[in-house]
């Protein structure tokens, strides 16, 4: 470090010193980083247990320096339910993609939210199945081309994309639901605040917390990382708006 300067940002220690395998520009890595910053700042590394999914983030436990469990595809909500019930004073999060949470795992997602299981969902919605090569997801946009919708998603045959944050916010057991993104520094800061808020609300035992990240997939979308930000702004946010869908009354939360 040069003389007369101080560090204003450096990589959190809770993010292991290992190069993450995600594609260049992928928000998976961003959210891993933000989540680990939050855990470091809150001082809860010793009390955190995470559940990682099947999907691009199947190796999340290689990057996050917290106890973690690998769940079967779609089942992270059931696994997280059990961990939180057995260890209620720990901070438990499930980290899932759109296939995991909104396709094969929809029942587990809805029922954990309906029961108000007190863990935090981190839902990475990038409208595609990245790990398996770019197939259509329940959150793929109408008209969007993927390997299993090569002519564009036909809403008449396959319906419109599922809006999970909106859906779960209707359930009484959900205390906090927000959709965030990381396409700009401002939004990325908001995403970090949302993750922190979710864990604080979990700490107060107010109910299920659900953070949906409108994320990108430059590889699956066949564009550059910078172009993926344009796709988010032009196509994704109009359908998947950012913002808070549900939160506890202000008096209950001091973040």
């Amino acid at each position: 470090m040069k003389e007369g300067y101080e560090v204003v940002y450096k990589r959190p220690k809770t993010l292991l010193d290992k190069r993450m395998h995600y594609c260049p520009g992928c928000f998976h890595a961003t959210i891993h980083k933000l989540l680990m910053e939050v855990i470091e700042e809150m001082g809860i590394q010793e009390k955190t247990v995470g559940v990682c999914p099947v999907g691009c983030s199947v190796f999340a436990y290689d990057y996050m320096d917290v106890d973690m469990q690998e769940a079967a595809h779609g089942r992270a909500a059931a696994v997280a339910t059990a961990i939180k019930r057995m260890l209620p004073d720990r901070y438990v999060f499930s980290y899932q993609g759109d296939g995991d949470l909104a396709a094969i795992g929809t029942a587990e997602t809805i029922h954990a939210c309906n029961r108000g299981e007190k863990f935090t969902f981190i839902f990475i919605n990038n409208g595609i199945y990245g790990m398996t090569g770019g197939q259509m997801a329940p959150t793929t946009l109408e008209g969007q081309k993927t390997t299993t919708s090569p002519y564009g998603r036909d809403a008449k045959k396959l319906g419109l994309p599922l809006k999970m944050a909106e859906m779960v916010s209707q359930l009484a057991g959900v205390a906090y639901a927000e959709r965030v993104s990381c396409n700009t520094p401002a939004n990325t800061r908001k995403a970090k605040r949302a993750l922190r808020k979710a864990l604080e609300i979990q700490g107060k035992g107010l109910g299920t917390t659900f953070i949906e990240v409108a994320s990108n997939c430059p590889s699956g979308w066949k564009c550059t990382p910078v172009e993926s930000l344009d796709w988010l702004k032009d196509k994704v946010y109009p359908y998947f708006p950012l913002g808070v869908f549900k939160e506890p009354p202000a008096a209950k939360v001091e973040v």
Partner: protein
Amino acid sequence: MQFPGGQGKIVSKSKEDQMPAKGYVEISMEGCKGCGLCVVHCPSKCLELNTLDTNSYGLHYAYLANEETCIACVNCAIMCPDAAITAYKKVG
């Protein structure tokens, strides 16, 4: 392959007679994936992708091309998905 946190190649174009910068950043050459998100979000246009060189992964890494204009806003480090940037601000 281990990620060498924060050890970056600092390439500065600052001239000796210019005011010292408000801040500077170190970008890990091997940790950077050349995604460009930091470059497009730097308000002072300090950062560039090195189109003439690649790291051992074959990626055009980002680097601090114009150190004198860095205002230590930390936007780049915030955007960087891989936490490959360490940001410094002038004390006082």
